[in-house]
């Protein structure tokens, strides 16, 4: 059980929740969140938006019964956060692009922060695609070198992949697929990492409901991922 410190709307249907935590998370990892007893059965996987060893933050979109319960929680209330789970984004340097669509922008904030922290000489450009109201753009601007915001269009249109050494992306599968293809088509040298948010049950690698069939064999999104190499998934 962890105590909720903050939990508020940051845009239509998007909430930011800050929770006490006694462990640190890596960028791209996620926790299994649960704020109920036995109904619904499954816990909800939510990426780490931010983490500092004492607290962890989640950016989540209210889409159904689980996230509706999350939204209803007041600061001071308890929530079970089991994790962090998964591999996370790999360390990287050079010219880095982080490309997020919708709530897929969530893991990119910590990624930007950590990458800049570890390699102040690297440049980290962030591309954020929104279908509705943009959010948290200031925060991303503080963390990254450059932030490009796309509202209502295709964020993949905004990026020239040839300029980058590493591209990390999280968002709808179709967006990540288009981005990967754009890189290949452009002959970009960039190594592409994608975060696969398959539906999960156990979240710890035991039940095989989150399997991605990749070119390097079956991978569990929860344990071997969620971050995988673009060519494995889309190549």
């Amino acid at each position, binding site marked *: 059980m962890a105590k909720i410190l903050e939990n508020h709307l940051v845009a239509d249907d998007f909430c930011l929740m800050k929770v006490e935590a006694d462990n640190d998370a890596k960028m791209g990892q996620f926790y299994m969140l649960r704020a109920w007893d036995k109904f619904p059965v499954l816990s909800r996987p939510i990426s780490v938006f931010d983490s500092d060893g004492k607290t962890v933050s989640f950016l989540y979109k209210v889409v159904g019964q689980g996230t509706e319960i999350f939204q209803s929680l007041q600061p001071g209330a308890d929530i079970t956060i089991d994790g962090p789970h998964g591999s996370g984004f790999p360390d990287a340097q050079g010219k880095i692009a982080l490309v997020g669509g919708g709530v897929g922008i969530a893991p990119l904030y910590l990624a930007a922060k950590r990458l800049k922290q570890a390699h102040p000489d690297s440049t980290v450009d962030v591309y954020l695609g929104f279908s509705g109201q943009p959010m948290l753009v200031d925060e991303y601007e503080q963390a990254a070198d450059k932030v490009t915001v796309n509202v209502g269009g295709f964020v993949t249109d905004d990026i020239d992949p040839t300029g980058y050494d590493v591209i990390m992306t999280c968002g709808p599968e179709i967006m990540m697929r288009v981005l990967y293809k754009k890189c290949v088509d452009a002959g970009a040298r960039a190594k592409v990492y994608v975060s696969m948010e398959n539906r999960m049950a156990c979240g710890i690698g035991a*039940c095989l409901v989150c399997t991605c069939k990749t070119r390097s064999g079956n991978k569990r999104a929860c344990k071997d991922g969620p971050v995988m190499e673009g060519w494995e998934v889309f190549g």
Partner: protein
Amino acid sequence: MSKRLETVFAGVTFKNPVALASGTCGFGKEFNEYFDIQRLGGLCSKGLTLHPCLGNDGIRVWETPSGVMNSVGMENPGIQHFIDCDLERMNALDLVNIVNMGGHSEEDYLEGVALLNDHPLDLLELNISCPNTKAGCMSFGLKAEVARDIVRKVRAVCRHKLVVKLSPNAEDVVALARVCQEEGADGVSLTNTYQAMAIDIKKRRPVFENVYAGLSGPAIKPISLRMVHQVAHGVDIPVMGIGGIATWQDAIEFIMAGAQVVQIGAASFMDPRLCLDVIDGMERFLEENKIDNISEICGII
């Protein structure tokens, strides 16, 4: 821990009657990062097939009211890989090692059993009840006479203790259990998942590529409990009760209905440590009710 929970199932001693169900706990490795899995009575491996199997495409899990549908489709590394990489570790654990095996054809089953014959394990759980494969598996477990044929052939080659895992979709689950007994099975376990359906009304197509998938979890507990009760009263071989167990009270219900051992599946998704609460709760219940051994309440209903 006292010996209150100690149970003997087909000659195999379980230090407590709680096992994790096949397919929900891998080969125990991941759970062992949460707690010492040797606190469990038993562990059922992910369902193995002769050849490695990539499992189904598309969405594999869907939540329903108090239930979970899955369509994993027997993804597994194959029996040989299991023997090479997991079996020794599982055998070294202080718990009952239950190896779950499925198949797409009769040959698969028989060759798989032959492969496993040469290696130690505690119980072989023969899965003739998985609803998630296009060919085989559950189709062996719907009609009693079809099941008789496969159980007879497996029994003829199998040198391990044999527990047949039954499908709630069977035409007559008691008849099926009787057939298993007649053909020399050492026990039966039930239930596997219920064949079920979900439709994505926006996309106007089934959620699952296989159209149907297997439902489990608390939603189906009352039906599985009824079947366990019927089967336990219909056969003399021991019974493992499975289906929606999520609390120690649920587990006691299955024991009272006649199960010697229970398995926990989907409820572990609520919390991987839930099985420990079940074990502790059962122990407490026995203590408070001055029951020296769980066998005293087994089948009392």
